[in-house]
């Protein structure tokens, strides 16, 4: 288990992360979600021991994360890049050697991974000769080749076409099934929604909400209603029970105030329009994200 406790990182004029805590279980994918500049990368860097926190600590299986744990972490940074002039195999073997994998083992593992990601024919090419997508695959391989216990993926899907996104998604899921601790940092809510068990939403260095994704959805979702109707529903604009309204032609998404019971709300409108469909909906992660950040 990876535990982050009261982490804080200050720079000269700014507080990059402010007292955040969470814990990650093996076999589960943890979504670290937030807008640009929220503090995601700083959090990742502290976890990886790239920078020291101002205060707080990161524990892995109860032990402080220090240099000795460096060999069991894998990292795919958001901004990608490899040694352009070097050959694919050389780069993979070198970066694996920095994780204490012997070059013999690294070569074998590299070939397995290249096969798995369908780019074995590029193994002797120079990095710069590969397409952007294939360079990303190489970078992905370098983050997993040493079979890390903790895998941190920062925007792993950008730059891939849908087919390769699917391939990477399946690979990440299989790594989770193999019991890895996986941190997925992303803006792409649909992926986070499909992949993550737990999420941590961060904004301006502070926690906005966190926990099990389905619980969060339930928490945010009880007051969200979808109505399909016929008739003039403009009166909803003046309805005091409604906190937020998205109205379309014959369809509306309604967010009720916390104190309002959805059944009572239904009763109050059923005489004014013809209701075709009424349901309490789970909000998308995207909506939770936008709402949470706006508030």
């Amino acid at each position, binding site marked *: 288990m990876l535990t982050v406790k009261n982490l804080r990182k200050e720079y*000269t004029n700014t507080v990059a992360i402010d007292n955040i805590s969470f814990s990650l279980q093996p076999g589960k994918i943890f979504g670290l979600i937030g807008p640009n500049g929220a503090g995601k990368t700083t959090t990742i*860097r502290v976890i*990886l*021991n*790239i*920078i*020291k926190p101002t205060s707080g600590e990161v524990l892995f299986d109860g032990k402080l994360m220090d*240099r000795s744990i*460096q*060999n069991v*972490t894998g*990292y795919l*940074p*958001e*901004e*990608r*890049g*490899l*040694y352009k*002039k*070097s050959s694919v195999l*050389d780069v993979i073997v*070198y*970066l694996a*050697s*920095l*994780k*204490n994998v*012997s070059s013999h083992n690294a070569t074998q593992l590299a070939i397995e991974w290249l096969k798995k990601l369908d780019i074995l024919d590029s193994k002797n090419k120079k990095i710069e000769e590969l397409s952007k997508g294939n360079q990303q695959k190489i970078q992905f391989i*370098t*983050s997993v080749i040493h079979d890390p216990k903790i895998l941190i993926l920062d925007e792993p899907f950008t730059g891939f076409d849908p087919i390769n996104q699917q391939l990477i998604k399946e690979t990440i899921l299989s790594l989770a099934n193999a019991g890895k601790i996986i941190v997925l940092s992303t803006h792409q809510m649909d992926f986070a929604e499909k992949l993550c068990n737990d999420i941590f939403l961060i904004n301006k260095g502070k926690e906005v909400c966190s926990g099990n994704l389905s619980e969060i959805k339930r928490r945010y979702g009880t007051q969200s209603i979808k109505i399909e109707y016929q008739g003039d529903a403009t009166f909803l604009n003046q309805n005091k029970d409604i906190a937020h309204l998205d109205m379309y032609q014959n369809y509306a998404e309604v967010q009720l105030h916390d104190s309002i019971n959805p059944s009572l709300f239904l009763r109050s409108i059923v005489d004014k329009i013809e209701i075709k469909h009424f349901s309490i909906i789970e909000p998308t992660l995207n909506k939770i994200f936008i709402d949470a950040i706006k508030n």
Partner: protein
Amino acid sequence: MNKFLAIAKWEFMEKIKSKAMIISFFLTPLIILGFSILPSVFVEKDDASTQAIGIIDNTQKYFPSLTEKLSEFKLEDKQPRYVIINLFKQNEQADSLKAEANRNVVKKKIEGYIFLSENGKKEIVFEYRSLSLGNFNDYRRFEDCFNKIRRVQEFKKANIDTALVAHLLNNVEMNTVKIDEKGKESSADFKSQYFSSFIFIMVLFMVIMISGGMLVRSLVEEKSNRLIEIIVSSCRPDDILKGKILGLSGLTLSQIVVWALIGTAFAGQGIVMFASFQNLFLLFVYFILGFVLYTAIFVGVGSIVTTEQEAQQITGYLSMITISPIVIMIPAMQNPDSLLIRVFSYIPLTTPGVMILRLNSAPISTIEILATLLELILSIYLVIKVSSKIFRIGILSYGKMPNLKELFAWLREKE
């Protein structure tokens, strides 16, 4: 394998395979040889064709002897070097003679002409006039011949034995013999000393330029593509620093070995120069220490730059400091024990260069050698300490370069 060794191996292997490196392996010795040998070759090489030289001898005393003397100079193919034409005319004014001669020079009928006259106080006017005044060898010959002839004539007038005069007029050249501390003699002269030290410092300068530049560029690359984050998350910044320095030093050593081989294979003159080094081992020690010191500085400084342009600027400035000993080269050769030179021997940045100069020109006491070596090693230790502190933070900061205040804040930060 230790991680810093893995980094060193990578730095070494990837760089040695690069095209730039292969070029530098072979091109740099050529450039150095070119700089050090070609100028003297060109200066000594004369025009290979006979030149028509006019003489206007208003004194009417020197023309016959001067013609005779100058005709003795031959080209390589035994043809006369100079064909002498008498431009003096009995009843004409000097000015009109000169005007006509000038026209002939312009029309390229003659290469140039010598003008001789005496004024009222028996002072001699001796001029060479030509379109191009570049050939140093020609003037020297004209001057030598004229002065010899004049002296011979004057001595003759005073009734002094001409054979004796001729004998006395031959210059005796002084040879220099250098004695080392064991009493052994060698015939190294000032010129070869100067050139050999010069070459050594040039080589030091070149390798620092090349490898320092490479180091900074590779850091900028790793920073800009964020590879550095992967590396830092895998090993300690100190290992990265050590690995890079070790890899580059290995690269430089092999470069020097290749250069030495090329030097001995192609340049006979090069062998003579290297043979004039007496403390070859010590020279290499200073060389390597100097290289490591500068590389350590480059790593620290290189980690704070973020663009290729900044990298180039900084590489340039740092390399200038390396060659600064060239400024005090002549005084150091002339007076290796002067206070100024001694002071420079103890300034870490100039220690390697100055000591290379001093070692090659006079024996230096063992204490001083030990002291400078100690000082150099100590400064390398300190520079690596400071550099690694800057490096640790610098490699992870992007955007604008830090100012001095920020740098000091980095230095105070605890690990």
